[in-house]
């Protein structure tokens, strides 16, 4: 249990956390704009991973050279992102949109229903057993001295997640769409009054959240190397926990929460035991919610009449 071991666990945790953060963004954005816990998000990512697996086989990426591999991974991320984004928009259009004015329970339960449907699709797509996702990247340690392990696939996570997050925060802060999104999340009625097409903004939010999830699904496959039709639930739960931890509705909060959850998971697995990880993560979640219900970076909101 040396310092080096500790640092290694932190590195693993942060890389994992970046991946969790990418998924958490999908939860937090949708929650921020329509106040819905999108239970189907984890399973959406599972479907993205199924598509990625099928595409890897179809494109023959497992046998390709390094240049083609990187190009292929880029293509996978774009395709799976578009797939998940479009699917997310379609679900919103046909399932959540008609429930916009219904009590909160209705869309929440519908989202659970959608997650069941997605799981069934995944079951038909890849079967009930876990499938291994081919290792496309060589496992060579990139850090000198070999004291810490940092492989190509760890680098891939950073290379994909960092630009996506910078892009997202620019989009939300600088662009017209971002401004509209912030306006709708503050007050949909007022936003509609000043001429914002609220439905379109909500659809855009679902698309962006889905796109990030699709990108996450490819990285998940390449990084974890195992996918299964039930992976959505567990991973969705961690990502959702991260979003709540950071303060749901807050974009920097989701990233921060993701990194914290990643670190906690890695350290708990290393020092307490893998099988307790789930319990520790959720126990921390409960404790944090008790003492700081708005999350670490969230704003305190008062109940509206």
């Amino acid at each position, binding site marked *: 249990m040396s310092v080096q071991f500790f640092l290694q666990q932190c590195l693993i945790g942060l890389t994992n956390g970046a991946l969790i953060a990418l998924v958490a963004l999908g939860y937090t954005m949708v*929650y921020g704009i329509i106040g819905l*816990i999108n239970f189907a998000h984890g399973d959406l990512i599972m479907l993205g991973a199924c598509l990625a697996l099928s595409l890897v086989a179809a494109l023959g990426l497992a046998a390709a050279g390094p240049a083609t591999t990187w190009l292929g991974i880029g293509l996978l991320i774009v395709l799976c992102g578009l797939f998940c984004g479009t699917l997310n928009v379609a679900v919103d259009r046909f399932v959540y949109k008609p429930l916009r004015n*219904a009590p909160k329970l*209705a869309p929440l*339960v519908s989202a659970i229903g959608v997650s*069941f449907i997605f799981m069934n699709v995944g*079951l038909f797509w890849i079967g009930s057993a876990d499938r291994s996702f081919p290792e496309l990247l060589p496992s060579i340690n990139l850090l000198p001295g070999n004291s810490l392990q940092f492989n190509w696939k760890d680098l891939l996570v950073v290379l994909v997640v960092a630009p996506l997050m910078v892009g997202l925060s620019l989009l939300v802060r600088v662009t017209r769409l971002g401004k509209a999104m912030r306006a709708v999340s503050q007050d949909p009625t007022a936003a509609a009054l000043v001429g914002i097409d609220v439905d379109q903004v909500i659809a855009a939010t679902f698309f962006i959240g889905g796109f990030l999830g699709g990108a996450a699904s490819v990285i998940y496959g390449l990084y974890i190397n195992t996918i299964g039709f039930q992976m959505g639930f567990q991973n969705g739960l961690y990502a959702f926990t991260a979003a709540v931890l950071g303060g749901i509705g807050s974009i920097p909060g989701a990233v921060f929460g993701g990194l914290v959850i990643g670190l906690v998971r890695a350290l708990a697995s290393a020092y307490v035991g893998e099988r307790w990880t789930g319990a520790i993560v959720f*126990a921390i979640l409960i404790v944090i919610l008790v003492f700081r*219900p708005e999350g670490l970076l969230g704003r305190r909101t008062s*109940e509206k009449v």
Partner: protein
Amino acid sequence: MQKNVASTDAARKAGGDSLPDAVPFGSQITLWLRERWDIVAIACLALAPLFIPALGGALGGQVTTLFIYCILALGLNVMVGYTGLVHLGIAAFFGIGAYVMAILTVPMYPFQIGFLAAAILSTLVAAGVGLALGAPTLRLRGDYLAIVTLGFGEVVKVTLRNLEQITGGMKGLNPVPPPGAGVQIGGIDLGLAFAIDPRWFYYLSLGVLIGVVIAMRRLENSRLGRAWVAVRENELAASAMGISATRVKLSAFAMSSAVAGLAGCLYAASLSTTADPNAYDFNRSIMVLCAVILGGLGSIPGTLLGVTILVGFDTVLAPWADSWIQQMNINPTGSSLLSFSGWRLAIFGVALVLVMRFRPEGLVPSRRLAAELRQEHS
């Protein structure tokens, strides 16, 4: 359904609980049946074992499990239906009830305090855990509370699985002795009777179910029950009227947990094992929630119907449809696309989405909740 309600109302207005004399005898019977469907149902269920010998076999066990899930769902209904708090971890309390029951009765432990005492204690322990979880978390907003209950469910499942010295890990705890083990009635060992004939458990769980239904009906119209509904409809308005929202919610949490714990201890006793911890996972919680929502939030007959539909789907419809597909030789390659049970999740999912879209109040709605849902809808 609406029509039924109207005619029972007419009957009530005409002469309190007794029936009007002017109505012809034939319709008097139908009116009575409509008014007191519950007595008819109880009579049918109580007499069923006399006429259906299969209830003495495996079927009896299945129906017992159905009754137990009904009790569990009625417990969940207190929180989700009456009080409007989304609870995604009810199976954890079901599990706590089952494991406390097992710990107090299995030969592995020195307690072995007998069924009745163990059942009371496990119900109390479940209620206590509910209070302990609820007290700090109930001030959270609805969605956060849902996540806390979900997280708690996972914590309990992982703990049950990993504390092998106490809970037996994946093997669970067994054998849980049947109720009345060692008690002699007229020369017959009661425990042995329970172990041999499933009809004993059938009647026991039916009796507990009836007791819970009666308790729920009384609660619905009590001061506390009305406070639950008031908090659901508008927490701020309820507090303005002098209802302590936190205390009311806490009592709902405790009541829910207690009833779930009671269902859990019956479950462990009827299976004579706690089964493995995966029996108390998120899937179980969500299926019970689906049953309550499908049947009708806040409605006792709705909850019972919802559970019956879901359990019936898994134990009757799916095996029947699968064997039919096999007989008709539709699916010679054994593809999961062509097996009925392969579509289970999708069918549940579509059902949930459609119910929420077109009939959010459920199949047998509570009138009050239906009005609330419809009003907010427009």
